[in-house]
């Protein structure tokens, strides 16, 4: 039996887990890599096509282990997954985040854990990332706008983190709040109640598929993909997966979620991928699968994005047309 001391991640670090010197040096080379990335990003802005993004990222490879949750679908190329993003804090066009997100600084970074937990605390991002081994999981990613990607994410189950936080019995939901900095996000549009807020029912957050994500394609998350930490729940539309998380709150009531506030008839709290419930502006029966082909093929959308076996049980007895 494992006896967990307190609610702190720090408390669980055994002497065997203390960072060896080589790893520390690797971290320094990562810092050099990050600096190179910054310079590279500038160069790319001026001379498109001069630097291949992969070359700059090469030094940041994460140590990951394989996962049984990987799907066999052909992966979306890194270049497409990192240049086509919905991240309104950095602009409303899908090409904006790749251009503007360089202003975000993913280190140093802390995540505040608050609300109905045994011991509210603030955790350093690297402590959080090193708490469990990172798994590489290739997930289908379905946007509510009827396009989809297949992305290898790197992270560990959110359930492991939540268990360590020891939520109280009264906690029924978990809310994720994203960074919202007026200085570093000059393209943030008005008319939204920032910060970006998303949430899950606690049992959804505890589902083994729900991934606390720090990287993708074996590297630290690029800023436009949600650095330094985001949630990925692959059976839900993409906007449910909060990026750049700064605060996690355990609540007894359903938390506010940004797109639901903006247009409740278009975006429900659950937002499970469902081909039978249309968005007012487009059918959800099909999706354009963005892969390496020049013209994305349109393929049928699967209930729960193909993850029904793992998640459908959580919604037994619920009217999913009403609770869309």
């Amino acid at each position: 039996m494992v006896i967990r001391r307190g609610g702190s991640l720090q408390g669980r670090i055994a002497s065997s887990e203390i960072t060896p010197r080589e790893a520390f040096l690797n971290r320094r080379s990562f810092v050099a890599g990050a600096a190179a990335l910054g310079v590279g990003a500038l160069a790319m802005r001026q001379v498109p096509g001069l630097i291949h993004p992969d070359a700059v990222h090469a030094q940041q490879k994460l140590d990951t282990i394989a996962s049984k949750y990987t799907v066999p679908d052909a992966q979306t190329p890194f270049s497409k997954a990192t240049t086509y993003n919905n991240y309104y804090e950095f602009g409303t066009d899908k090409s904006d985040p790749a251009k503007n997100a360089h202003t975000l600084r993913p280190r140093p970074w802390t995540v505040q854990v608050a609300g109905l937990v045994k011991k509210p605390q603030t955790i350093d991002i690297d402590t959080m990332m090193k708490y469990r081994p990172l798994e590489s999981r290739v997930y289908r990613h379905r946007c509510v706008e009827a396009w989809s990607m297949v992305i290898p994410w790197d992270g560990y189950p959110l359930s492991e983190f939540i268990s360590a936080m020891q939520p109280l019995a009264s906690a029924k939901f978990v809310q994720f709040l994203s960074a919202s900095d007026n200085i570093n996000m000059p393209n943030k549009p008005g008319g939204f109640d920032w910060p970006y807020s998303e949430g899950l029912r606690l049992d959804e957050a505890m589902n083994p598929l729900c991934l606390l994500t720090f990287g993708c394609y074996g590297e630290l998350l690029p800023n436009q993909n949600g650095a330094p930490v985001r949630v990925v729940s692959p059976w839900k539309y993409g906007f449910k997966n909060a990026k750049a998380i700064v605060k996690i709150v355990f609540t007894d009531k359903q938390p506010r979620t940004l797109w639901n506030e903006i247009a409740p008839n278009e975006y429900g709290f659950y937002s499970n991928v469902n081909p039978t419930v249309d968005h007012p502006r487009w059918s959800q029966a099909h999706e354009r699968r963005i892969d390496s082909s020049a013209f994305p093929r349109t393929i049928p959308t699967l209930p729960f994005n193909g993850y029904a076996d793992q998640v459908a049980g959580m919604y037994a007895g619920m009217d999913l047309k009403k609770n869309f």
Partner: protein
Amino acid sequence: MPTRWIPWIKVLVHGACLIPLLKLIEQYRSGELGLMADPVNWITHQTGYWTLFLLLTSLAVTPVRRLHPKLGNLIRFRRMLGLYAFFYATLHLATYVFLFSGYDLPTVAAGVRAGHGGVVVEQWRVVWPTILDDLKKRRFIQVGILAWTLLLVLAVTSPTAVLRWMGGKAWRRVHTLVYAAATAGCIHYWWLVKKGVRAPFPMTLVLAALLLARVAWSARKRWRNRGANG
């Protein structure tokens, strides 16, 4: 501008109007389109954008030529601008039908090459229910189709022979539909973007300014006529 320049300027205008299409073809040929995450979205947006751009340009001809007698010749370019707007609107509609709806062009191309022409109709049968559903349910599609249909009417009635046959007065009355088409186009744009996106704003502002210019012009004319009669 001297009348003898007009044929040369027409060549230039043809060239300018074809630039957006040539750019798309070049992006396809060079593989740039294939590197884009969502080329279908890009093509849809480009053809839609240039439809509205050219439509507004054709609407700007009349107010601009009223500014100075020497600009009177600009009327010689209005029809071709309008026809190019219809051309891009048709490309936009074709993009929706053959790329956006799920019509599987690669499969059709492979089928036709292998001698199975029936695949063209087969694919159409697959996507038709989706298109019908869109037409029934989605107002941005409805108003978009309306705009295209109006432009079709204008394009069909655009030849000089049709103008003569209809008579100037009736023809002009039919062609005031261009205002409805441009307005429907702008509404289509607003209804399809997500909340918080203000991309349609500049186009809408230009349309409003052009419509206001016309209202102001006719008000001035009426006021002057009254002055002359009284």
